[in-house]
């Protein structure tokens, strides 16, 4: 997994609360047996018309948002199912960070394992970012994970929380399974002790 580096990008605003994983990637696209290509189906039911053409009024299809790597969502992003296809679809499309005020637990766990940063702002900071993007849709934000700050135009920086272990794993591109495999001796001893062998 590549390390998560500081980056600056424009933002796609999708200001809907409780965006569920069925919207992020509808279940009919889960019949795949690999992780690739899901970006095309990201937000499929909001993004395409019945005939398969792109809906011009949906944010992902607007030319001014092309290439943006930050998705700005409403509260409680990613609720619903455990499908890791959700972060695979978001990263497949090109997103590296989702900004919200909170994330559903399983989604956040899955995102972190795929170099996708779930960035939770306070309600007040979130409102300010929303207002800023309304006045300047082309505004660029800088995500700096090592200092846990989101830098907005005008020099203001907003801090965000992240679990220390998750931060290290993201920054250094640590493979969690590799970390877990280091404990095999402890795991075997535990199983012997608790007769879980």
């Amino acid at each position: 997994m590549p390390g998560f580096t500081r980056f600056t990008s424009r933002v796609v605003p999708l200001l809907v609360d409780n965006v569920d994983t069925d919207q992020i990637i509808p279940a009919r696209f889960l019949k795949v047996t690999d992780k690739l290509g899901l970006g095309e189906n990201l937000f499929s039911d909001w993004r395409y018309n019945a005939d398969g053409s792109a809906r011009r009024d949906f944010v992902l299809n607007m030319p001014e948002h092309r290439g943006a790597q930050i998705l700005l969502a409403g509260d409680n992003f990613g609720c619903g199912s455990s499908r890791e296809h959700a972060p695979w679809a978001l990263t497949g499309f090109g997103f590296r960070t989702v900004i919200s005020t909170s994330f559903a637990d399983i989604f956040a766990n899955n995102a972190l394992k795929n170099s996708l940063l779930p960035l939770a702002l306070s309600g007040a900071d979130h409102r300010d970012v929303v207002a800023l993007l309304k006045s300047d849709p082309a505004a660029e934000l800088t995500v700096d994970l090592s200092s846990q700050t989101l830098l907005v135009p005008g020099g203001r920086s907003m801090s965000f929380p992240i679990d220390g272990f998750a931060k290290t794993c993201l920054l250094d591109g640590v493979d969690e399974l590799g970390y877990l495999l280091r404990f095999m001796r402890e795991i075997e001893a535990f199983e012997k002790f608790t007769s879980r062998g």
Partner: protein
Amino acid sequence: MNAPNPKTLFEKVWTSHVVTQEPGSPAVLSIDLHLVHEVTSPQAFAGLRARGIPVRKPGRTFATVDHSIPTGDPAVPLSDPLASRQIGQMEENARWGGIRFFGMNSAQRGIVHVIGPELGLTQPGMTVVCGDSHTSTHGAFGALAFGIGTSEVEHVLATQCLLQRRPGVCEVRIEGTPGPGVTAKDIVLALLARIGVGGGTGHVFEYTGSAVGSLTMEERMTICNMSIEGGARAGMMAPDDTTFEYIAGREFSPRGADWDRAVARWRKLPTDDGAVFDMSLTLDISDLSPMITFGTNPGMGLALGAPVPAPDEVTDPGQRSALRKALEYMNLTPGQPLLGRPVNVVFIGSCTNGRISDLRLAASVLRGRKVAPTVRLLVVPGSQAVKRQAEAEGLDRVFKSAGAEWREAGCSMCIAMNGDQLSPGEYAVSTSNRNFEGRQGKGGRTFLASPLTAAASAVTGKITDVRTL
């Protein structure tokens, strides 16, 4: 008298499964039971193969196919090449990993959260995981059970452990006696209407209170199943005699002296007097009416007779726009009652309400009655064992003579991956767990309700309170 160091049920299960924990890092948590299905596991097996790692404890993982399998005539070959490939891959991966697999032709197959308990695999005090958010179901047995992503499926296959942060515990105290026509589904829909879909984030629910002890295991499973809809990864209930009675004598349940030892161990699991929860709330169900959802998440629910809420009366701007968007998708008018609204489809099934007691409830309404000619009613048993039991009791004849489709086991129209789906614009009353936009088919509109409400609505062709039928 309080125990010297009182602990919650969650704490007991958690602590006894922590292998080790480095400072600042998540715990290494040992996993007792791992359930696997065809949709969220192919990439995990591919990952293991790429690393050259075998399945470490094949005896603790059980696999089945439920999400993408057809529920029609079993003699008809699969028409969906992608589903067919996924099912074939599950079988091949199970063989490669040495994992017990309940395949298409297995008498034990069914929805993963129905067969785990049914086979006696799910037991109190266990850690249970599956690449499926409704793994919370198994918490009804006093297990710590939660959904995981595909990367974590790979971690469990490789190590039989997971890296986990300890969540908080929220006590959900359920008090009172439900009135006639009010089921476990109505209780959990009432809870969700109160706390919303994010209310339990970061927490495990422990359901306590006088009402919980008098629920059957299947009712307990319905409530724990939908804990995830409130944002809680797990829901737990203290094991008691009802629990032990349910588990006894099942295929994978302990036997003889092992059984006695297990029960003695399980009796120590309930939360000690004086143990402290991180949060607590109480739900009184004495005056509860049958519940139904009107919107596009499971927290948007109301009493069956109540009018659809008006966005203009909501003060929070986020909630107001969410409500407006939901009503637009559902094509509902604020202030309108849902009662009497025509529906096109009724779906009875899923890991929430696809067990034998749910089918009995539905059959009690449909016996001697006919499904309205404007309605398609699908009855999909949660497992092949549920199907056999229903047929032994003659419930299949009740459904068929009422005009319902009696189908094979599977997730079916709960997730609409297998061809069982709504057409755009159609309305369904569904006993499943999610009413998200398009969940039951692109453009489809879902009202979540109990098997009683679903069956009554199938008879009249419109949303109906079973108590008035």
